[in-house]
């Protein structure tokens, strides 16, 4: 087992264990904090896949932005006196069976598909190449996404302060 394998298993374990706690733990604030570890683990997986810029964007946008938004959502919508944490067990059993079967099916498909063997892309810094692609090949998509984000933020602000 090489160092690369070890790091992969480490990040995969962090991601999956904390994701499991996110969806099973009762206290929603703890769920939000376990989501932090999931995002960190996924960023680690991006790094060992050679996507350094995407990993940094993941850390900045997800951990710095989306997680804070979700924590705001949790704190603003949880009355301390009226905490409803009971979940009916009748939905958990069918959901577990269905989701486990789905995960097994998906993994079996992935493992058994004869993927074409190709040379892996060498690990190089990607930031410059991504920047050049963003203003040349993907220029229109980039502009459209900027407009979309502007619309989304204006919409969110006007929705929330009504």
């Amino acid at each position, binding site marked *: 087992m090489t160092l690369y394998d070890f790091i992969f298993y480490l990040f995969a374990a962090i991601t999956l264990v904390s994701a499991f706690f996110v969806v099973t733990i009762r206290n929603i604030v703890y769920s939000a904090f376990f989501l932090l570890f999931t995002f960190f683990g996924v960023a680690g997986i991006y790094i060992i*896949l050679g996507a350094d810029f995407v990993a940094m964007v993941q850390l900045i946008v997800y951990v710095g932005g989306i997680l804070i938004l979700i924590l705001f959502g949790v704190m603003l919508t949880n009355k301390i006196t009226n905490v409803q944490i009971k979940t009916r067990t009748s939905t958990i059993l069918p959901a577990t069976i269905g989701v486990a079967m789905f995960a097994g099916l998906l993994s079996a498909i992935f493992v058994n598909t004869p993927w074409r063997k190709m040379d892996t892309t060498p690990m190089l810094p990607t930031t410059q190449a991504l920047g050049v692609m963003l203003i040349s090949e993907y220029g229109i998509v980039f502009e459209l996404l900027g407009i979309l*984000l502007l619309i989304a933020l204006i919409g969110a602000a006007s*929705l929330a302060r009504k």
Partner: protein
Amino acid sequence: MIHVGLNHFLVVSSILFSLGLFGIVTRKNAVMVLMGIELVLNSANINFIAFAKYGNFGLQGQMMALFVIVLAAAEAAIALAIVLNIYKTFSTVNVDEIDTLKD
């Protein structure tokens, strides 16, 4: 253990997807449903980047992952604004109880 290849990343992403799906279907709190959606989006991103590396597509997959992250940010902002409005109107965020379009 065998050497880490494409399949390992795909299996991790499929398990992450299933955990997100489990969160979406079992949790009642609307904010928890949003967290499940974030897990699903992250698993899709792992797939994009894994195929970008092992499929030799250059940087196209990483670009798609960036776009997914941008869309996830927009989606989280809008969805949390809606959840806050729902909480103001119904004083609950239980998605099973919110079943009317006007009060």
